[in-house]
């Protein structure tokens, strides 16, 4: 447990990005919260801010959130320069205020990338991810056409590695943290998840080529091995997947000639 000066409540100054809509100009606004319980989650702290704004007759801060358990991938802000904030392997909904100190100033911004236009305040449009999945992030298995589930054994090690990659929640922190706004960690996680399994093998080449083309078409940048994506990823997805993506891509382009 991190010390909070022996107090159960702390005072905070918040610099929050406010932007009325996609085409509006945005700016930081400063708010003060006097007694934030250290047991709150970060999003509950934003709830308290919004209640305060409502009581003052002002519009609350828009932010995406849903499960508040770190699995749906809805939430995500840049907190003091870090996507999802200071803790490793933690979405911002699982970050608790005991991590902060009395008197701290917290700057809160949306995930910024050309391919993630701001919708309002801290909410961005991440539908580019869905379009990338739609061109190849699947196994073409028609409903009803499947053989018995145990017909094809999968070595446990491969299944575990596939699961590691599959645990991506599609939040977009990798893009927000990358200086090039690349989506390579996201794309590579799906390419690895499916490519490692025998069920995904028949479409392995087509998948990687289609997904990389879609990724480029959406305006994401390229990977220059900075590694910020892995550091920001709340699910600990490894950059090793990007290396695998590059190998698969080269292999597929040679084979397709």
């Amino acid at each position, binding site marked *: 447990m991190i010390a909070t000066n022996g107090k159960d409540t702390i005072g905070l100054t918040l610099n929050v990005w406010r932007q009325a809509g996609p085409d509006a100009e945005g700016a930081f606004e400063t708010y003060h919260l006097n007694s934030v319980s250290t047991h709150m989650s970060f999003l509950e702290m934003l709830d308290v801010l919004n209640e305060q704004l409502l009581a003052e007759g002002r519009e609350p801060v828009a932010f995406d959130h849903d499960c508040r358990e770190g699995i749906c991938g809805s939430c995500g802000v840049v907190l003091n320069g870090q996507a999802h904030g200071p803790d490793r392997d933690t979405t911002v909904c699982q970050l608790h205020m005991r991590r902060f100190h009395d008197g701290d100033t917290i700057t809160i911004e949306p995930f910024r990338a050309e391919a993630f236009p701001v919708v*309002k305040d801290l909410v961005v449009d991440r539908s580019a991810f869905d379009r990338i999945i739609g061109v190849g992030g699947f196994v073409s298995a*028609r409903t009803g056409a499947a053989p018995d589930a145990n017909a094809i054994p999968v070595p446990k090690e491969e299944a575990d590695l596939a699961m590691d990659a599959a645990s991506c929640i599609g939040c977009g922190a990798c893009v927000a943290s990358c200086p090039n706004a690349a989506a390579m960690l996201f794309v590579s996680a799906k390419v690895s998840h499916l490519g490692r399994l025998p069920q995904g093998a028949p479409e392995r080449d087509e998948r990687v080529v289609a997904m990389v083309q879609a990724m480029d078409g959406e305006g994401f940048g390229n990977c220059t091995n900075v590694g910020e994506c892995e550091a920001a990823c709340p699910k600990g997805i490894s950059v090793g997947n990007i290396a695998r993506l590059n190998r698969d891509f080269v292999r597929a382009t040679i084979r397709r000639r």
Partner: protein
Amino acid sequence: MIVANTALDSKCPSGPMEGRWDKHRFDLKLVNPANKRKFKVLVVGTGLAGASAAASLAELGYQVDVFCIHDSPRRAHSIAAQGGINAAKNYPNDGDSIQRLFYDTVKGGDFRARESNVYRLAQVSNTIIDQCVAQGVPFAREYGGLLDNRSFGGAQVSRTFYARGQTGQQLLLGAYQAMMRQVGSGKAKLYPRREMLDVVVVDGVARGVVVRNLVTGEIERHAGDAVLLCTGGYGNVYFLSTNAKKCNVTAAWRAHKRGAFFANPCFTQIHPTCIPVSGDYQSKLTLMSESLRNDGRVWVPKKGGDTRPASEIPEDERDYYLERRYPSFGNLVPRDVASRAAKAQADGGHGVGPTGMAVYLDFRDAIERDGEDVIRAKYGNLFQMYEKITADDPYKVPMRIYPAVHYTMGGLWVDYNLESTVPGLFVLGEANFSDHGANRLGASALMQGLADGYFVVPYTVGAHLAGRALPAVDTSHPAFAEVEGEVRSRIDRLLSIGGSSSVDSLHRQLGAIMWDHCGMARNAEGLKRAVDEVRALRARFWEDANVVGGAADLNDELEKAGRVADFMELAEVMILDALDREESCGGHFREEHQTEENEARRDDENYSYVAAWSCEGAGDPADLSWKLNKEPLTFEVVKPSTRSYK
């Protein structure tokens, strides 16, 4: 003998149980392959049920329009299911079968579900696992490469397939990817960030929906030949629940007010292992997977009000009350039984932690027996999540847990075809009432959502499309204009209340009424008081809610206000249902109806029915009323008996 007072035709086939679904499928009309592209199906919701249905229907060749409340269909609340999915594969060779899964589900539901539906669910369970594996769902495997199973939620066989603690996530991604394949190839059209605000009924048949674009505020009309509601459960009526924040009853409720009966609304599931409430700011509750009860032991101090830390309470001063009361099932008793037992301990002054509203779930003995590494491999992610939220290390001190609202067995009434009382309106997954009776077994929600979407509705929607005359209807039909007008005036009304209470604060008050009087234990006196309190709160909502912002952009407060307004109405019929059901069964525990040992006392003679409520005064929120319609339940295979886990 219970007599149906309304023509509620369940359309359940007759004949031997194991052949009913086959027979029914054979009897259903088919749509000619060349005609499928002429029909449009509107799918609302993209959780397991919605995504699997949308993918399967588009594969069959229908035009599919699919609506999703999130920015991406991958975020539906199915994603949060941790534990697993049941199937009767019997891979572990421990005696499982379709018959046994069927029997366990009927019994687990306390004999308040239809046998035919449950048997079909058990039958298709195996095909679901095949389908998911073929999609690349990375289920846990053994070293030989075959699939692993575990025992879950009180089952005495190991029939649960799982993907670490993220089974719901992986199954949803499988269905989502299958759906996105159809979207990517243009066979399905995806409308994200849309909220369904009404159903359009033309000549008695559901022919469209009116949705709000949550980003632009635009009100859109969509016409089709069938409407599928896959919009989840209504646990958020309690404000605090394990449901995600966006989970709501609005789509189902608007359908209810257009004529769809709402069945067994009082059947809610309180999950025994959640992290206790810590303060007034609490926005939701977090579930700790039930799988923890496989190794954790539940206890409280024998002495009431004992404030010593757990480590200082000697063994003989601990009451392992589940093991004591239920020697054969012990810590693995079903959810309703475990939840009530925890409440009894807290009510009796034996609760632990700062609020006294918690019991211990202790891994000390399991760690001594198996070693910390083994426990870490099984539950590492759950322990980590617990520590993040509570700042306590469960490897060193016992977890504190308490029951929380988790799932709703009730929902829109559907027949064997999953069709509601509004023809052409189908309801899938948690949004319907069909398969779990009065209590759902662990790892059965994922099974039902996917069964409905992959393997039931693709056949039964076809029968509707092939069997009914469906004249061409488009969005210029006057019915659409009328419904859109009603939707707009409701939004205007919400925005013009101009009160001073935040929507959340009113929602919290509603939740408190429901938790106190229509939660884990109910009695006539409390329920009657709750009806009055809910009506008064509903009136206050429409006078004093503070809904800021406008209708023409992203406005979370407006969205929440619309949903809370519907919860305020639903709450009343939940209470009426709980009042009507003068028995205890499953998750519904009436204090007046219990044995000397405080176990539930069911009344099959008088209450073996589905309570399907129709909305009578559908106009102003102030003068709503409901009528009870009964569908008698008959049991031909599993003879109703007293559930005993002793």
